[in-house]
């Protein structure tokens, strides 16, 4: 009964979605307030019904109702509760349901908190949002129905893929989807603006918090995925340039560009057309990512061709929205007036530069990800594009971008003084050069590039601090004034500095772990000791253990440094009963910002066991930097002017009672 209710709720959501796709647009066209308001109610109800549908599916999984095909395929009655819940989205059907749940959540948020939007804009935004939602409800109902029943109820489920039985599955996909799907709001706003043919600084002010929220979630979502891959896959890598990773990186790059161009638009009323284009592109890339991941095209062009229903359906959605969006853009963009002139050397100029590099970086990832697919289907030629390609092309772009990053926030709007800024960054160069020298002194010349990278990272971090020092007048003014100025600084300024600091921290982590990591691969017998960096690890022996739905062989290692025991590490190999598959559980020990990482291999006939041991200095900074970026995004999001909302422009200057801009709370 419950699965049928869930199915029915989704059908109702589709019906609501179709109504919301049409009625508010008609209302906006004819300035009919009642029709426009309808979108608000349907958006809230869509969320309610998709939520019910998702709840129904969750109940099927939690109660181990294996008459539901997807629960049978992906769940097991012996799994811990947390995995029963996460396995709801640990498969294609359920993850698409999570996708539309978050999509409808964003629609409902606009409906609930968009009270200060002009009525026509709100109506159009909700309608566009509903076009997307309806397309995906249809996709789920027609090709990926998670509520399908089996003719006979199996006694036991097939279990969730063991590698997904991890807390990572609870955290990573929801966060990633909040980011991915969050860009749909920017897209809807862009399309609505194109439909209305009107766009101004207020538009940017409405779009920015949504973009910022999506970006913040995407940042942390990608980082959590990276950490998950790092500790699960057993060889200590944290980014593999895999197409599915690239699928999430592309919207992130476009979203980061959008975030910066929207600042220019909001403050200076310039870069309007470009901002609209980026808003369309950011979500288009999210859709392309969904297509890449969900269609099966990545595994092989041929597997896509042999079972094309889902892939073709998403491809049609993709082409309709991207093609439609870009066509509308080409047709209407010229009607948008450009405003806000600026000199090439200015804050605006710096942000344009930032956009050029971010979009080129995004294009690089795009080409690298899709080129093999295109070449294979067009010319039948198979090539591989992997990490070495991206390191060579994407790497330099990002390093140049980072080297110039500290200049941006210090440049003045309209016309900046680059020499003045260069002088004000003196302290940052000094810090960078000092870090470079220390890196050379400590690590020697085994890698020439790495110390420069360390120097760059410290210079960017110092640059972010210089920005704050300049603005608060620290070291120049009495502390009382500094404190007052610090408190008076817009939160978005703090957010900028913190986020820029964060990306430098991540860079430092990547360099540290990538260059100065130590790796040993050895076959060990009990009571043998291996030394790794400053640590001595003694293999004590193997022991058998059992968990709720697996049994495991764990190896016990005692870790000593300088003769003092600091702990025990227990990497293991798990065998999952239901699928008879095994996973490798690496053992990690965090030492400062570095980590010891142990992972087991095969047992040899002589009784020894292969072990991979790594020491990865600074590796934690990679994810810690992402958390700092997230904090920066959150700070910026808490900025007063984003919370309070945009002042309403007085459109009738003759009417004195309304000439004063009124602030309306957005929440």
């Amino acid at each position, binding site marked *: 009964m419950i699965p049928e209710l869930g199915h029915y709720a989704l059908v109702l959501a589709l019906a609501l979605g179709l109504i919301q796709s049409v009625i508010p647009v008609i209302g906006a066209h004819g300035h009919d307030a009642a029709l426009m308001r309808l979108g608000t109610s349907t958006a809230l109800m869509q969320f309610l019904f998709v939520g019910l549908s998702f709840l129904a599916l969750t109940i099927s999984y939690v109660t181990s109702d294996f008459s539901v095909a997807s629960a049978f395929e992906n769940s097991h009655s012996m799994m811990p509760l947390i995995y029963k819940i996460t396995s709801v989205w640990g498969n*294609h059907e359920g993850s698409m349901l999570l996708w539309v749940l978050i999509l409808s959540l964003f629609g409902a948020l606009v409906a609930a908190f968009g009270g200060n939007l002009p009525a026509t804009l709100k109506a159009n935004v909700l309608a566009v949002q509903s076009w997307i939602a309806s397309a995906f409800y249809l996709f789920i109902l027609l090709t990926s129905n998670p509520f399908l029943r089996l003719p006979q109820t199996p006694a036991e489920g097939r279990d969730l893929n063991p590698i997904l039985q991890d807390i990572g599955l609870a955290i*990573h996909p929801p966060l990633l989807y909040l980011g991915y799907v969050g860009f749909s709001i920017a897209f809807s706003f862009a399309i609505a603006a194109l439909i209305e043919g009107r766009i101004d600084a207020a538009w940017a002010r409405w779009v920015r918090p949504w973009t910022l929220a999506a970006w913040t979630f995407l940042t942390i979502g990608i980082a959590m995925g990276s950490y998950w891959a790092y500790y699960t896959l057993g060889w200590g890598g944290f980014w593999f340039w895999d197409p599915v990773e690239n699928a999430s990186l592309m919207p992130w790059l476009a979203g980061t560009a959008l975030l910066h161009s929207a600042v220019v638009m909001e403050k200076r009323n310039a870069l309007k057309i470009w901002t609209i284009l980026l808003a369309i592109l950011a979500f288009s890339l999210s859709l392309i990512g969904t297509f890449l991941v969900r269609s099966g095209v990545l595994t092989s062009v041929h597997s896509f061709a042999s079972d094309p229903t889902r892939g073709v359906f998403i491809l049609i959605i993709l082409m309709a929205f991207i093609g439609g969006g870009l066509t509308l853009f080409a047709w209407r963009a010229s009607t948008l007036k450009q405003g806000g002139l600026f000199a090439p050397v200015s804050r605006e100029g710096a942000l344009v530069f930032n956009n050029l590099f971010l979009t080129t970086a995004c294009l690089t990832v795009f080409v690298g990800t899709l080129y093999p697919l295109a070449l294979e289907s067009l010319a039948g*030629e198979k090539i591989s594009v992997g*990490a070495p390609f991206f390191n060579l092309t994407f790497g330099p772009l990002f390093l140049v971008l980072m080297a110039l990053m500290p200049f941006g926030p210090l440049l003045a709007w309209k016309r900046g003084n680059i020499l003045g800024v260069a002088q004000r960054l003196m302290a940052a160069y000094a810090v960078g050069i000092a870090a470079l020298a220390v890196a050379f002194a400590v690590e020697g010349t085994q890698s020439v590039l790495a110390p420069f990278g360390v120097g760059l990272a410290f210079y960017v971090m110092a640059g972010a601090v210089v920005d704050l020092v300049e603005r608060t007048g620290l070291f120049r003014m009495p502390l009382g004034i500094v404190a007052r100025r610090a408190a008076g600084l817009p939160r978005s300024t703090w957010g900028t500095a913190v986020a820029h600091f964060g990306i430098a921290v991540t860079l430092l982590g990547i360099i540290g772990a990538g260059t100065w990591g130590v790796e040993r691969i050895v076959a060990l017998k009990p009571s043998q000791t291996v030394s790794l960096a400053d640590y001595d690890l003694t293999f004590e022996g193997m022991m058998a253990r059992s968990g709720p739905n697996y049994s495991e062989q764990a190896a016990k290692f005692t870790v000593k440094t300088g003769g003092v025991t600091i702990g025990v590490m227990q990497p293991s190999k798990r065998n999952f009963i239901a699928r008879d598959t095994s*996973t490798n559980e690496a053992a990690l020990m965090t030492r400062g910002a570095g980590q010891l990482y142990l992972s087991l291999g095969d047992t040899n006939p002589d009784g020894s066991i292969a072990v991979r041991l790594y020491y990865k200095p600074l590796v934690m900074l990679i994810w810690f930097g992402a958390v700092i970026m997230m904090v920066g995004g959150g700070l910026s999001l808490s900025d007063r002017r984003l919370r309070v909302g945009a002042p309403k422009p007085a459109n009738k200057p003759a009417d004195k009672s309304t000439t004063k801009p009124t602030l309306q709370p957005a929440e």
Partner: protein
Amino acid sequence: MRGLAAIGLFFALLGVGAAHAVTPDEMLKDPALEARARALSTELRCMVCQNQSIDDSEAPLAKDLRLLVRERLANGDSDRQVMNFLVARYGNFVLLRPPFEWQTLLLWGLPPLALVAGLIGLIVAARSRPTVSAEPQALSGEEQKKLAVLAKAGE
């Protein structure tokens, strides 16, 4: 397999657990030679895996290739020779960094082209567009009328 860091993991993972790639018995005695083998391995694709290098993959084919690379190196091949040998045998598919050929022209060319075109476009736009330093323009007739209306309303 490596798609864990993105949503594709549900789709990409086909039930193979993670395990070891390079095993102790494969490794060469000479550390310099072994280091070269490792460096080469990161550039070579395990052809039965999804986007994994042979250095990372535990697939039997990857092991065979690792041993082959080491065998060639031990026989005195240069890095270039090893690569050429493998390309002759398996085609460009084995290279994770595709060679620069006419077929990969767009792959390698598009990003720098876009960057250069973008820079040129910006320079042209900056030159042709009036900047803040330009003289303020006189109001058009329509704007003057609007101003007059505003001034009147303000009185």
